[in-house]
Structures are given as C-alpha cells and as structure tokens.
C-alpha cells in the first residue's frame, strides 16, 4: 500500500515539475477525444433523426375519387393489393372525412382558408409504411400506372440523403479518432521522454541502488495514464455541455436529444480509451530510454 502511495506521489511530483508540457499533452488528448466524441454525438443525432423519418409514413398515395369515376371499392382493392407487397409493412386508409379533419388541424391558424374550403377538395389517401425504406422507388414505380392513383408523395429522397450523410459522418468520426488519437499518443510519448530527461539524475541513482525496473517505470506510466484520463474526462465534459446547450435550442424538425444511456456508455468508453492512449504513449516514451 505504501508502495502504491509512493509511486503515485512520485508521478504527481513529476507532473508538477513540468506543468506546461503536461498541460500540452492533456490538451492534445482533450482536443482529439472531444473531436472524435463530438463527431460521434453528431452522428448519433443524424441517425436518430433518420430513424424518426423512417418510422413515419414513408409513401403517401393520394387517390382519385368519385368525380374521376373511382369508387371507394376501388380504393379498398388497391389497398389490398399494396398490402400484399413484401416491402410494405402496413397500409392505412385515410378517407375524405378523416383527411378533412387533418386539413382543419393543419390550417387551424388560417380560418379564411378553411372558410372557402370543404371536404370535397381534400382527397382520400393511402399511407404506406415500408419495411425497407430503400425500396420506396419500386413502390412508386408500381403505383404509377394504377388508375386510382392521383399523386404519389414520398420523403424517400430526403431519407436517402440522411443515410448518406450518416455514413460519411461515420467515416469522418473514425478517421478523426485515428489521426488525432495517434497524434495524442505521440505527444504523450514526448512528454514522458522529457519527464525522464528531467529526472535523469534520480533515475541514475535509482538504478545504482538497485531499484527494480518496474519501480522506475511505473511513475512514468502512471503519469501518461493520468494525462490521458484527465484529457478524456475534459473532452467528455465539453461534449456534454455542448450537446446540452444545443438540445436546449428548440428546433421542431430535428430531434436533438440523444437516446437514454448513449452518452453515459460512450463516456465510459472514451475515458477508458484516453487512459489507454496515455498508457500506450508513456510505454512508447519509455521503450528506448529504459530498457532493462
């Protein structure tokens, strides 16, 4: 126990001696992890929003009505046909009455518009959910020729773009994490080199009196690990604050809240990663100088 205390004290004394260098290493870890973590959070926001779109009704088919010679029965039979398609998970029929209610809700703020409108101007429609969003084009293609179809509206293209953005962000986040992470490891290795240099007399005496190699190395390893840990904790805090202040902005169309547990889970991962990167950096710094 006193040994661990001694080694820890030693590590902190080291760090006090080179405050500026240590601050630099912590900052490097902080920046790299904050960038990577930030990209990850952004990525998650995009993913969540894509999912929200996807969970909505993907294809809306407005139908011709009795004026065009299409009956309710035709509507029903088209619905039955669509239900049979494998990429369709569900179909909901919205008749003229229901559509009119919807119309009234949407334009509740424009009574003049409502005054001049009535149920006859809103068409009935079929609201389709897909099991595979990517196949909205097939659906459109097949519906296009149907006699009962007046107009097809699909947010599929927007969804597709969001998916693309998502995968680009994914790659960007991974790339950033790798480049910045290795830069931080190298920086910590340099910090440890400097720490060894600053303590070369002490290290020489330690070797002279027969201190074990691990006893000499552990304070340096601890130093690197603490630097990585502190940098990671700061990065997590910064991203947390940033995300909170962003989600407090009220934007209707984009959901900025993250799913429960997402942040905590990844915080732990990043803090561990920071400590690991610090440990790796100091091992790298120690490698040549303190061979056994």
């Amino acid at each position: 126990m006193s040994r661990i205390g001694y080694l820890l004290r030693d590590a902190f004394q080291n760090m006090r001696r080179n405050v500026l260098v240590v601050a630099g290493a912590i900052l490097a870890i902080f920046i790299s992890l904050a960038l990577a973590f930030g990209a990850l959070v952004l990525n998650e926001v995009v993913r969540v929003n894509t999912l929200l779109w996807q969970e909505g009704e993907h294809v809306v088919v407005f139908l011709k009505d009795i004026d065009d010679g299409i009956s309710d029965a035709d509507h029903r039979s088209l619905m039955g046909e669509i239900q049979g398609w494998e990429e369709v998970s569900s179909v909901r029929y919205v008749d003229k009455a229901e559509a009119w209610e919807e119309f009234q809700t949407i334009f509740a703020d424009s009574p003049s518009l409502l005054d001049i409108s009535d149920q006859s101007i809103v068409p009935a429609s079929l609201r389709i959910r897909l099991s595979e969003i990517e196949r909205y084009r097939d659906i459109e293609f097949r519906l296009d020729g149907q006699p009962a179809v007046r107009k097809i509206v699909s947010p599929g293209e927007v969804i597709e773009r969001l998916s693309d953005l998502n995968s680009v962000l994914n790659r960007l986040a991974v790339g950033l994490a790798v480049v910045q992470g290795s830069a931080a490891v190298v920086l910590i290795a340099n910090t440890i080199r400097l720490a060894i240099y600053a303590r070369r007399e002490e290290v020489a005496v330690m070797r002279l009196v027969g201190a074990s190699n691990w006893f000499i190395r552990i304070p340096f390893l601890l130093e690197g690990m603490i630097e990585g840990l502190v940098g990671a904790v700061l990065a997590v805090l910064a991203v947390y604050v940033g995300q909170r202040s962003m989600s407090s902005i009220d934007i209707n169309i984009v959901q900025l809240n993250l799913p429960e547990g997402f942040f905590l889970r990844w915080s732990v991962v990043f803090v561990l990663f920071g400590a690991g990167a610090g440990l790796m950096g100091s091992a790298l710094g120690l490698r040549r100088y303190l061979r056994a």
Partner: protein
Amino acid sequence: MIRVENVTKVYDGGAVALRDVTVEIPKGQFVFLVGASGSGKSTLIRLVLREEEVTRGRIWVAGKDITKLPNWRIPDLRRSVGTVFQDFKLLPNKTVAENVAFALEVLGHPRAVVRSQVSQVIDLVGLSGKEDRYPRQLSGGEQQRVSVARAFVNRPPILLADEPTGNLDPKTSVGIMRLLDRINRTGTTVLMATHDHAIVDAMRRRVVALDGGRVSQDILVGRYEDTMAQPKADLSTEEVAPERGSDPFDEPAAEAEEAAVESGDDGK
C-alpha cells in the same frame, strides 16, 4: 566475495580495457585498486556492477556468476553492492536525510523502517544534526559522507568506491578513509579504486595494481610505491583478515597529512 576470472573487456570500437584479469577478494577484505588513468580500474568496477558486460571471462559476486545474470536480476546484484563515486551523485533537490532515504524508498521499504535506518547511518557517518541540509550547503567531505551513508544504508555485503577522495583535500580524505575503514570493520568487503598515494600508504591494506589492463602487482600489505617495483605475488586465494582494532590514521594523523601534501594532487 568477489571473484574475477580471466576477464577481458573490449569496448565497442576496439579499445581494450582489461586483458585476462584474475583477482579474488575474500569476504571482509579491504582492497585498493591502483593504476594510472586508463589502466582499467573504473572498467573493472563497472563490470562488477554489471554496468558493462565482460567480453570474455567470469565474475562472481557473493557466490553468483553475474556475467550470466539476466537483465531483470541486475537490481538484486546492485542491492548487495553499495557504491561511492568521486562526484558523489547526490540529488541536489533532496536534503541529506532524503538522499539517504531515497535509496531505501525506491527498494520499496516501509517508511518506519526507512526512518530508523536513515538516522542510524547518518549517525554512523557523523552527520547528525545536518539531516535537513541540502547538498549545496555542505562541504565536499560532508557530501561524500552522505554518499557513503546512502551506499551503506541497506547494509550491503560489498562496498565499491571509485576514487571516493578524488575531489577532496587530503585532510578531508582522511576522514572519508576512516569512515570506509569503519565500514570494513563491520565485515563489509571494500574495493576502492584510487590513485591517492598517501591514503594507500597509510592504510596498509592489500593493493592490486593495474597497468594497461593487466594486473601488474598484487600485494597483501602494500604501499603505493611497492606497486611500481616488486614482482607480482599471487595472493588471490589467501584468506586475509584486516588488522583489527587499530585506526591507521590514529597516531600518525599529522604524518599522513604531510605525506599526502608531499605526494601532491597530481593523482598519479
């Protein structure tokens, strides 16, 4: 205690430091290692500490063949060998007590043990009351006492001293030699490299002379000049007990000082 057997050391680059050197030092003996600069004294000491590896031959320390020691066992060797150097090697930002304690702390000894051992050994080297001074506040002789204290604090069976009086004036040197003599009397084997004539002459101990990397003289009770003249006698296997109970500097202290002054500080 130390057995050097047919040791040859060639440094990278081809410089030959030792050629087929054989020396045996029994437990409890006090041995001077003399010779001109470059004769191989320091190399021999570095080999015994495993700071360098032999090119050929064997070295046994405390019954172990250290030429075959794996790297991770080297700390064990160094714990059984205390070392004192010409330049003291004290840490300037630590006090006397902290410098001595450092040697025990880095071996992982508990604090209570460290404290009592340190105060004992500081007492032994005559620095009681100066525990909280920093090295820069001490004279050269006092600094060397601190370094002796550090070397001896974990009571190693062997003490190596590489020109411990090299930076000190003759009078101060006598003090350090008294200290090493006292440590030797506790049963510690002492091997001291030096070219201080006065000290070798006054101590009357075994003298091993190196010349160009070879043992040129090995005299049981020697004077420095003897190493220049007499033929080599093989004493390596004899058990030698140092004269006990007498302080070589006791009575002729003034004389030794004079002799030291006479011999000058040329260090040859």
